[in-house]
C-alpha cells in the first residue's frame, strides 16, 4: 500500500511535468505565430502608401490571429500553472486563483453543454493551506454532478466568501434540470469520498455545495 501511495504521488508529479512542458512548448509556437503576423503588419505599415488596400483587407484576419493567440496564451499559462500545482502537495493557496485555474480549464466542457460558469469571488481573502489539485478535483466532481443535470442555458456560480474565521468555497446551480442521460465520469459519491479521506468540510445538497476552511 505504501509503495502504491508513493507511485501515485510520483505519477501525479509526472503528469504535472508533462502538462507544464506541453504548455511551455505551445507558448513558444504561439510566440512565433504572433511575431510572424506582427511582422506582416509591420511590413504593410512601413510601406503604407503602396499597401493601403492590402492593409485594409488584412486588418480583420490579423486581428483574429492576435485575438486567438491571446486566448491560447491565456490557456497555456493556465495549463502551466496547473501542471506546476501537481508537483507539490499541500501549500498556502489563494483560493480565488486555485478555483480560477479550474474554471479556465473546464470552460470548454461547460460551453459544450451550454452551461455558463460564473466566478463570484470575494476579493482580499486570506490564504488557506490545502492541496490545490485535490481541491480542484473535489470541485470538479461536485461540478460534474451539477453539469450532467442542468439543461442548456443553466448556470454554475462559483463563489468564495469569508465570514469571521471561516472561508467558504461554494457552487450553486441555476436553471432547469433534466433527467440524467449522460454517463458520469466519476463514481457516485466521489466528492464525499475525497472530502472524507482528505478532511475537507463538505456540505452538498441538491443545487448547493460548499467547502468550509477554518482560518
Amino acid at each position, binding site marked *: 500500500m505504501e509503495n502504491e501511495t508513493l507511485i501515485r504521488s510520483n505519477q501525479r508529479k509526472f503528469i504535472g511535468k508533462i502538462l507544464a512542458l506541453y504548455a*511551455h512548448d505551445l507558448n513558444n509556437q*504561439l510566440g512565433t*505565430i504572433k511575431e510572424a503576423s506582427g511582422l506582416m503588419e509591420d511590413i504593410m505599415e512601413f510601406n503604407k502608401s503602396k499597401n493601403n488596400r492590402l492593409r485594409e483587407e488584412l486588418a480583420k484576419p490579423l486581428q483574429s490571429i492576435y485575438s486567438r493567440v491571446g486566448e491560447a496564451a491565456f490557456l497555456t499559462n493556465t495549463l*502551466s500553472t496547473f501542471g506546476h500545482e501537481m508537483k507539490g502537495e499541500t501549500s498556502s493557496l489563494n483560493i480565488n486563483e486555485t478555483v480560477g485555474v479550474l474554471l479556465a480549464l473546464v470552460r470548454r466542457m461547460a460551453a459544450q453543454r451550454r452551461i455558463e460558469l460564473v466566478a463570484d469571488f470575494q476579493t482580499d481573502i486570506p490564504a488557506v493551506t490545502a492541496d490545490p489539485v485535490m481541491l480542484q478535483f473535489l470541485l470538479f466532481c461536485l461540478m460534474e454532478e451539477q453539469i450532467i443535470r442542468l439543461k442548456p442555458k443553466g448556470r454554475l456560480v462559483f463563489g468564495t466568501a469569508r465570514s469571521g474565521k471561516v472561508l467558504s468555497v461554494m457552487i450553486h446551480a441555476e436553471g432547469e434540470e433534466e433527467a440524467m442521460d449522460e454517463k458520469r465520469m466519476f463514481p457516485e459519491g466521489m466528492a464525499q469520498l475525497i472530502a472524507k479521506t482528505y478532511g475537507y468540510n463538505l456540505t452538498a445538497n441538491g443545487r448547493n455545495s460548499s467547502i468550509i476552511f477554518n482560518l
Partner: protein
Amino acid sequence: MRKKEIKVLLVDDEVEFVDTLGQRLRMRGLVVDIVYDGEQALSFVRKTEPDVIVLDLKMPGLNGMEVLREVKKLKPDVQVIILTGHGTDKDEAEARKLGGFDFIRKPADINLLVVKIKEAFSEKFERAMMAVTFAEAGVFDTAKRIIKKDE
C-alpha cells in the same frame, strides 16, 4: 546631439521566433544582434557590451538564469530582460533577485517590449551619467580623503 542607438542582444534557441523578433525591433530603430544559446551569449558579452539583453530562460546547454548570473558578474551594467514561454512566479522572483530588469511572458506585445527595452536603457544611461557626474565633481576623491582621514 546625435541620439544614442540602443544596442540589444536577443538570446533564444527558437530560431524562427528570435529572427522575426529581431527584424521587427530593427524596424523600430534598435541595433540588434542575435545569438541562439547561452554560451554564444556569454561569448558575445565578453567581446562587446550590449545595452540590453532580451533573454529566454529554457535553452539547451546553459539556461537563462545561469546566463543572467554570469552576465551580471562580467558586465554588471548590462540590463537583462527575461522573455520566456515558461516562467513561473518563482522564476520571476529569482530573475529579479539576480538583477534582471524585467520579466515578460511570451507571446509578448512588441510595443510593450520596446518600452521595456527603452526603460532598461534609460536606467543604465542614468547610472552611467551619475557615475560621471560624481567623478567630475570629485566626489570620489573627496570620499577617499575622508575615509583615509578616519583611518
